[in-house]
């Protein structure tokens, strides 16, 4: 076999592995994907919730905007997103799930882009179908896109809030996942939490 074929093979394989490595860093800072399960209470540290369905790992999410890719920081620094494809009910009774992003500053607009196998009320951010124990919202895709004004970009902490998963019938907060957007060295904690599949 000629050397050039081996080189071609190895080169593209190496590029692919490098893309995998780059993906790992991007996955922690751009459009972070995370899992959601109820009822987990306040997720103050990495945890694995066990119950009616599969074990679900969750942790507080800290996104360091300075850890994002060069292209993102160069071309579109003021937009950052979060995403989930997984909302599970690990409890013992059916829950009508309502979502809320807590503590969003009024000048940071957040777009909700939701696609789901359950009907979703965009006004109240509530799934109209109850989620039964052990079940998950089918074919779910939720992206939250944060529009960060330029004057926030130098702040050490840009957003300090979280995702509340609420029982729509009782108003009780079943799970709270803290979410923080920080700005590089100005913050004390490294990027943690979240994954991309």
């Amino acid at each position: 076999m000629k050397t050039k074929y081996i080189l071609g093979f190895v080169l593209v394989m190496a590029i692919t592995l490098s893309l995998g490595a780059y993906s790992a860093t991007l996955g922690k800072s751009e459009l972070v994907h995370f899992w959601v399960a109820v009822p987990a209470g306040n997720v103050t540290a990495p945890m694995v919730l066990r119950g009616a369905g599969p074990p679900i790992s969750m942790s507080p999410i800290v996104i360091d905007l300075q850890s994002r890719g060069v292209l993102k920081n160069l071309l579109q620094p003021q937009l950052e997103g979060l995403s989930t494809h997984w909302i599970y009910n690990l409890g013992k009774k059916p829950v009508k799930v309502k979502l809320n992003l807590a503590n969003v500053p009024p000048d940071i607009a957040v777009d909700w882009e939701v696609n789901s196998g359950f009907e979703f009320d965009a006004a109240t951010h509530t799934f109209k179908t109850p989620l039964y124990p052990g079940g998950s919202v089918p074919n779910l895709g939720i992206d939250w896109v944060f529009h960060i004004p330029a004057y926030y970009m130098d702040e050490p902490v840009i957003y300090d809030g979280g995702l509340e998963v609420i029982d729509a019938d009782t108003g009780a907060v079943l799970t709270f996942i803290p979410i923080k957007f920080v700005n590089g060295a100005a913050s004390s904690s490294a990027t943690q939490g979240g994954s991309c599949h």
Partner: protein
Amino acid sequence: MNAKETLIRNRWRYISFVVGFFLFVAPFALFTRAVYLIVGNTAEPTLHSVCFRMPIDWIFGGRFYSIFGSSWFMAAFVFGVIISSIFLGAAFCGWLCPVGAVSEAISRAVPIPNKFRLRIRDTKLTMSMRYGFLVGFIAVAALVGYKLASDQLGSICCRYCASSVLQNFASALFGDLSAIEYWQSGAIISLLFWLVIGGLFMSGGRGWCLFFCPLGAFSGLAHKLGARLGFYRIEHKPESCNGCNKCQDVCPMWAIKEDHNIERTLCVNCKECVHACDAYKLIRGRKIADS
């Protein structure tokens, strides 16, 4: 062959590209919508609903349960495409795939001189690179899936997704401008490689298909197997060949070898060579080659 001639000779394939767009890309996604309707799924189908990569990632990452879960349709589609390639060649890639169709169409529509476009004439080199990607893709899926390097590596399925970029543009085209609002670095890289480098600056516009599509790579292997078994394929008849190399110029997948035979792992049965030269014949039905 001028552009008008190309358009007329390949009209059925270009019509098929449009059909593929309507079948898989939202807001139409008619194929997926029909399946969702039958199974009672109320989700809004998009090109993502038939991801060309994730089921392959699940298999090699040990997530077999995902194949039988709520995403069974995605898995059935991908395995259907691969299995059909045994009998029909990589027809999905050549005739229906919206991702390949768009980059090929853009490549043909934008008149960039050939000297600025990359083409590898050595099919073995193209093949080595294509399967270098596939092995890398499988390695990443396994290393991440089995948690052998899940801190160092991330899945490349969703992070670098040309389907997602295409779907976002299509959604924006049909009124949902928010679809192209957010760009992550991986999507920008995908856009650059799929449409700019792989589309505009690679001859034939199929750079993404050649070097970054695991479904295409598996379909190519399935087609090679099918052709060996005598199924649907294009054959070169050396006695009718005058060595003009027109076939090499028109093949968007760089699948024509130096001796003008076809490298099956690259061929998508687009029939561009059949239309360009009488030395190529389509073999339908099960027929073992004479030589």
